[in-house]
Each structure stands twice: as C-alpha cells, then as structure tokens.
C-alpha cells in the first residue's frame, strides 16, 4: 500500500473525437499542495471533474487513497472535497443551513454536524455570517462558503478549481493562507492561471497545455529555471560584446537597446564584482546591475510554446 492520496492513471477524455485531456498521469501524497497551471481551455477543469467523479474518463482511472473512482464511487467521493469553478451554492439558504446540508450529504454523523459547521466557518472566517443569506454575501464571502463546503467533512483530498478568481487582493491573501493551512493536513489540488499564486502556495506544479502534461515537478525546479545565472547590466557607454566576454566567468553577452547588456555567467561563479571593476576602470558609465530573472510567465510560455513547436 503506497501513500498516494490521489493517483491519476492515463486519464483521457474525448469530446466528440477531440481529446480535451490526453494521457494525464500523476500522483499526489499526503500534505502536498499541487498547483495545476495552464492556459484557458487546456483541460484543467476537465481533469478536475474526472478526479472528482463528475465526469467519466474515456480512458484511464482515478484512485483516491487507493479506492477506484469508477468501481467504488461513493467510497472514493467520501474522501474528496470539491469546489468547482462555478460555486455550487444554494443562494436561497443561509450559510448555516447550507453548510449543514453539505455536512449531512457528506456523511457527517448527526451529532458531529454542529461542531463541523462551526469549525468550517471558523477556518474560513465566516463565523459572523452564520445567519446571512448566501445570496446577500459579497463575492469573496461566497467563495469562502464554497471553500468551507469543500472542507467540512475533513476530506483527505481537497480539489479547488480557481479558488481566487474575482477576489480582492486582501481576500486573495486570506484564501491563500487558508489553502496553505488546509494543505498541511490534507492534500490539495488547485487550478489557477495566476502564476505567482502557484509559487506562493504550492509545493508541486503541473503545467497542462492542450490536454497534455508539459511539466510535472517540484516548485523548486521551476524556480531554479526561473532565476538562472544571468545579469542585466545598464551602461551609458556600452562596450563591444567582445570586451565584456573578456571578463573571466562571462560565458555569453548580448547587447540590448538603451545601452543594456544581458550577460550569462558560468555556474557557481559570481562575476558581478569583476564586471563592476572593469566597468569603472574603462569608464563604461555603469548605472545598473541586477540579476536578470525570467519571469514565471516566460517559463510558462516557454514550456507551452515548446510543445507547440514539437507538434508542428
């Protein structure tokens, strides 16, 4: 018996012959937060629907804590909390009523319902909203109710589809903190297309594009790729590229407009100091030197773009 909470095995979903998701396999262990990234229409939501048993996969299977979703849907679903992209809220009910129904449907025993509702409200910061109609709550609070609904039965796996969409920055921060907190004792899968969010809350990242997984690994790998070993140097009297290359450890130099220059240096070296010295000595008019970070966006574009080129 392995310790995977979620196992997706070669998931494929066809929509009228077109593959919306093809051959997606991954595993998730307890206490991990997995970020699901991808452009619009890449198949993130479809994959999540298959994981939660809302959609039958055309091929492949899903196992939640070793229980097959297709063979034993009830047992598997009991271990999942799911917040779909469109919040499934009954707006004519109050927060308490709605959460009670959610607890009841998720097999929380009668005497534990009240404490479970209280705890979910507490964790999502909803305690003072108990008697309010969901309809009258703001967007952010409705989102919290959605999240509360998905964690009320203390599931092993929480699956959140774009949990921070449409929220203000403070609410986003709160919800991210909440996701981290949930992630410490449950497994969390969340989808998003906000890249910094992934960096902040996830330990694992998957990038999906056109139904295929193009990247699957720890967030650190992605970060390393992102920071790289490059320097961005701004000078008033930029020298020729050759002059820059003559500095030890500089491997590559590239001239940019406005007297800027991008310099790649050998690994495990720090040529910044010698560059500054050389620049001062030769009067290059150095005014800026900074590590050149490829943004996560660039990495993302690279990854999804490579895939396109390969396909072409």
């Amino acid at each position, binding site marked *: 018996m392995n310790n995977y909470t979620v196992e997706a095995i070669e998931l494929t979903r066809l929509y009228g012959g077109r593959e919306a998701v093809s051959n997606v396999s991954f595993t998730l262990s307890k206490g991990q937060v997995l970020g699901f990234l991808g452009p619009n229409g890449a198949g993130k939501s479809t994959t999540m629907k298959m994981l939660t048993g809302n959609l039958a996969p055309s091929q492949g299977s899903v196992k939640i804590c070793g229980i097959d979703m297709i063979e034993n849907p009830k047992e598997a679903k009991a271990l999942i909390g799911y917040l*779909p992209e469109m919040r499934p809220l*009954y707006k004519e009910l109050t927060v308490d009523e709605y959460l009670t129904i959610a607890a009841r*449907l998720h097999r929380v025993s009668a005497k534990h319902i009240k404490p479970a509702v209280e705890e979910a409200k507490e964790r999502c910061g909803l305690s003072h909203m108990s008697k309010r109609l969901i309809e009258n709550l703001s967007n952010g609070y409705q989102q919290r109710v959605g999240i509360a609904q998905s964690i009320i039965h203390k599931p092993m796996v929480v699956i959140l589809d774009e949990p921070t969409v449409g929220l203000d920055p403070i609410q986003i921060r709160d919800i991210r903190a909440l996701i981290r907190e949930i992630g410490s004792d449950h497994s969390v899968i969340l989808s998003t297309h906000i890249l910094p969010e992934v960096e902040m809350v996830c330990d694992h990242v998957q990038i999906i594009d056109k139904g295929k997984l193009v990247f699957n690994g720890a967030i650190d790998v992605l970060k390393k790729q992102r920071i790289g070993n490059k320097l961005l140097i701004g000078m008033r009297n930029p020298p020729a590229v050759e002059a820059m290359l003559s500095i030890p450890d500089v491997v590559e130099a590239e001239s940019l407009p406005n007297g800027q220059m991008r310099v790649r240096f050998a690994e495990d070296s720090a040529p910044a100091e010698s560059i500054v010295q050389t620049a001062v000595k030769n009067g290059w008019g150095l005014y800026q030197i900074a590590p050149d970070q490829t943004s996560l966006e660039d990495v993302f574009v690279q990854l999804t773009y490579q895939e396109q080129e390969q396909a072409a």
Partner: protein
Amino acid sequence: MIINVARKELKSMFSSPMGWVILSLLMFAFGTYYLNGVNDYFAVMSGAMRPAERTGVTQFVGQTVYGFASFIVLFAVPLLSMRLISEERRNQTLPFLFSAPISLTEIVIGKFLGLVLFLSILIVYIGLMLSTLNIWADIDFGYIVANSIGMLLMVASFSALGLYFSSMTQQPVVAAILTFIALFALMFLDRFFAGDPSNTLASLSLTRHFQSFASGLIDTADIIYFVLFIATFLTLTVRRLDADRLRG
C-alpha cells in the same frame, strides 16, 4: 442518504415564497370547495325525497373536493417540479450533489420524495378537512382513505414525470410547460377514446386509473400502473443524469 436529499429539497421548497404561496392558495381553494360542497349537499338533498336518490355526505362532498383537487394538481405539480433539476443545472449546483458520496439513484429518489412529501401535506389536509364532517354526520372513512391513496399515487406520478422533464432542460419554465402538456395529454387520453373504451391507449390514461380510487375502490391493478409509471420516469431521469457524467 435518500432522506438527506429529500430534506434538502423540502428546505429549499420552504425557503422560497413559491412553496408557501402554492400551499396556501391550494388550501384556500380546497376549503372553498369543501364549503360549497356542504352547502350544495343540503340544497340537493332537500329536493331528493326518495331514498334511492340520496347519496352519502362523504361521497357528495368528497367528490367535489377530490374532483377539483385532481384537476388543480395538474397545474400545481409542474410549477413545483420544474425547478427540481433544471434550476440546479442552470445555477451549476449539480456538482455539489454529484461530488457528494451519494449515487445518482439516491439523488433522484431523494428529490422525488422531497416533492411528494411536500404535496402529501395537501392530501393530509384534505383528508383532515373532510374528516371534520364526522362531527355532524357518520362518515365513510374508507372512502377518504381510498381517495387519499389515489391522490397520493397520482401526484407521485405527476412528480416523477415532472422530474424527468426537469432533468432535460436548463429552463424551469420549459420544463413546466412540457410537463403540463404531457400530463394534460395523459389525463385526457381516455376522452379521445370515449367511443372505444377497450382501446389499449385509453388504458394509459391517468384519469382512468384514478377513477377507481375516486369511487372508493383500492384496485391493485391501478396501484401497479401508478408504481410502474413512477418507476419508469425515475429510471429515465437517472439515465438522463448519468448521460451528463458520461457525455459531459
């Protein structure tokens, strides 16, 4: 688990004005008919001198009220059943039920039971109202029981059909109209075959099977007709929802 779904349905039925308005309007209408029935009874019976012309008060008043009730539920049930699934589809709340550890069959039966329980409030109310006649007269409780069972089976069949149409569309109004047309056709099917009562199609008519209950007769053949009718449409609804999961 089924009961939890039914409770949820009842809760949302009573948390909107719709449920209360329909209940109070119908009860008002039944009360009026009951009162009229009692008045008419005295008017008619005072003219009927010979014993052969006389009918019991239970049957006379009961016929007025139950006859009206079986007609009015034709309008009430589609209005109540229309939102059962179509509204959840439109508000995209179905995943809430689908991702809970309950099977599709339990969801459908739960929703069906929720509506039937709601409607049975009306039937119990009519039964109680007619029983008050017992204060002045010696009434036939068997007649009321048979009619109540008949009414219950009939509204349950209506609900099953309404649930099915509700699962086919996103628009509650469309569901209501379709349900109404289908029910109307089924109710009056036997009128079209009035000249040929032995026709097979005529025996599909809901009215025909209600008639034996209306005259105070509990016929197992009719019970089975209603049970099969309900089972058919509930099965179709489950299949319709399953198609969602498979086709997406």
